[in-house]
């Protein structure tokens, strides 16, 4: 096999070592890496030779279509008045499945009162949907994208079916569960998560499947409680932000007839513990094998909540001041 020349390739994934080792973050050759869109040859002429130029000799690079990285996010926030949505939860608690199911709902014809309007990250969404679908099949992998990035952002533009307002733009922060796992136990780590302060909506996500397990349910409750407490302790969330609790896998909970138990053990106590912080609890079944709980249950409520307290006249104003605030923000570097 011909050796890969070092320094020729580069990758948009910050942790990828392709430039220095010739192998991608998953240990694959550039031609074998499934994230081939992220990997480019630094010499544009060579790039054309490899992928083939179909239009002509001079090509213009289009936006990647993948999830945005932090330095790229200003391209969006300059263009649109966006709301930043953050879903926090433990690793493998179902964040990706939630995003995947939300995007899937538009593949079927809309989500609640909203219809699809645009996305600048179609490949990013399809990638996350793909892994969510694979996970549904019970497959496991350590090589998925979410774990190779700390922060990536997905863009979704939606419009109300009645067309009474302009397209509203959401940016979903896709943050690795591991990062929040460490933040939950350390003030320093928590303070480095400036994304919390910038988010318009924060959702604390609990794995409903684990809440059904007597050996796990106390841990889940404790984790969520600690996370919110540490956020508050470090002034990372404020009353101006909209926060809510999400319980996933509601279909499994319903199948076992445990709705009241989960309500009494988890939902009510957590809401009572953080009055003024948590607005509400949303139960979600991204997928469902329970005939009484339609797949996608709770997704429209989740989307509605993303627009809680949004002044529609403000949404119509393209010059809203917070669009400029995003442009200035910069997450603190981890030390």
């Amino acid at each position, binding site marked *: 096999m011909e050796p890969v020349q070092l320094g020729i390739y580069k990758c948009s994934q910050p942790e990828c070592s392709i430039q220095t080792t010739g192998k991608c973050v998953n240990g694959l050759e550039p031609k074998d890496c*499934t994230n*081939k*869109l992220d990997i480019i040859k630094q010499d544009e002429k060579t790039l054309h030779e490899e*992928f*083939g*130029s*179909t*239009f*002509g000799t*001079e*090509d*213009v*690079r*289009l*936006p*990647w*279509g993948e999830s945005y990285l932090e330095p790229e996010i200003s391209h969006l926030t300059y263009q649109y008045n966006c709301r930043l949505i953050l879903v926090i939860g433990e690793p493998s608690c179902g964040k990706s*499945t939630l995003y*995947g*199911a939300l995007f*899937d709902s*538009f*593949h*079927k*014809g*809309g989500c609640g009162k909203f*219809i*699809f*309007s*645009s*996305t*600048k990250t*179609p*490949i990013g969404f*399809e*990638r996350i*949907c*793909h*892994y*969510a*679908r*694979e*996970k*549904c*099949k*019970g*497959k*496991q*992998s350590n*090589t998925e994208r979410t774990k190779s990035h700390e922060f990536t952002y997905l863009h979704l533009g*939606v*419009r109300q079916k009645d*067309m009474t307002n302009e*397209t509203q733009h959401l940016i979903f922060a896709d943050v690795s569960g591991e990062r929040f796992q460490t933040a939950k136990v350390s003030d320093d780590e928590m303070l480095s998560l400036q994304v919390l302060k910038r988010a318009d909506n924060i959702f604390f996500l609990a794995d409903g499947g684990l809440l059904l397990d007597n050996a796990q349910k106390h841990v889940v409750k404790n984790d969520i409680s600690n996370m919110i407490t540490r956020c508050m302790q470090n002034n990372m969330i404020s009353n101006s932000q909209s926060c809510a609790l999400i319980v996933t896998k509601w279909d499994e909970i319903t199948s076992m007839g445990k709705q009241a138990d989960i309500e009494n053990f988890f939902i009510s106590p957590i809401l009572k513990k953080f009055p003024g912080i948590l607005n509400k609890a949303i139960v979600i079944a*991204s*997928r*469902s*094998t329970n005939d009484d709980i339609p*797949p*996608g249950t709770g997704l429209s409520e989740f989307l509605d909540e993303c627009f809680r307290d949004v002044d529609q006249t403000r949404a119509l104003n393209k010059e809203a001041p917070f669009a400029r605030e995003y442009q200035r923000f910069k997450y603190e570097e981890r030390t």
Partner: protein
Amino acid sequence: MTNDHNKILMLGLPEAGKTSFLAALVQYTAAEIDDKTLTQYKLSSNTAYINLIHETWLKGLRQERTKIIATQNSSTVAELYLQEEATGERFILNIPDFFGETFESQFNDRLIGVNYLEQIKESSGILLFINPQKIRQPVLIDDISSALFVAASMDSAVSESGDSDTKDQGQIAMDNAVVAIRPFDIEEVPTQIILVDLLETHLSFLQKMPLHVGIVISAWDTVIEQDSNLSPLKWLEISLPLLYQYLISNFDVINFKSFGISAQGGDMGKPEVARKLLSYENPVQRIIVHEDDKTHKNIASPVEWILSQWQKRQK
């Protein structure tokens, strides 16, 4: 009487029906037909490509892939000198026939040619071709959950029937499935995602809004075989809901109209269909156009619609 250039771009993934449409359009504009709104008043200076696809269409043969024809011809641009019968207005219609792989790789490789960008800026509108038989539908999380639920139910039924060997094999298959996650493959992205992205790209480079888009659902004969009452717009809503939502919700920047078109009138691969279609005295009779709940033979109607929208804007 004015003499103006109008450029209409044809977009579509491979085998979407672009070349067949163009060939039938050439036939329509050249043919002697009553009540025609557009007529050809002059032949273009180079008709090698047009003649080739036109002849193929007349013979009822399957069009060679444009990619193959392009390697044998220097130009795959159709240049039609047209006159609007009602007003006498003359214009030159330029329709470059890009091969479908161009658009597929635009999505996959995220590159667009400088020359093509110029064409976008100069265009009066777009004809977006969709072949109902070439749609890659998404496999949704629901679909997988339902399939697994059915599989589990069947396993359970087998188990209850006491067929332990079959159950064991089913269990082994399930266990094997847990082994590895399949990597994401961009070439499996659903068709509607690619089409939305193509339109987004065109919108982002367009200098004048709105973008006029004629949605041409090709091989319409195959759709009406299943449901003769279906309108092109309804088909779009049912078959490509994400694209439909995109078009509806961007009404302020995209002005679209849908057409169901069968340029050949049927599957020429079936001898009995081919015999019937080729027996028409006037080949235009083969054409099926479904527009506004009406069926007619005017294959130029998507072009006429774009030009009318363009003219409205000019006024």
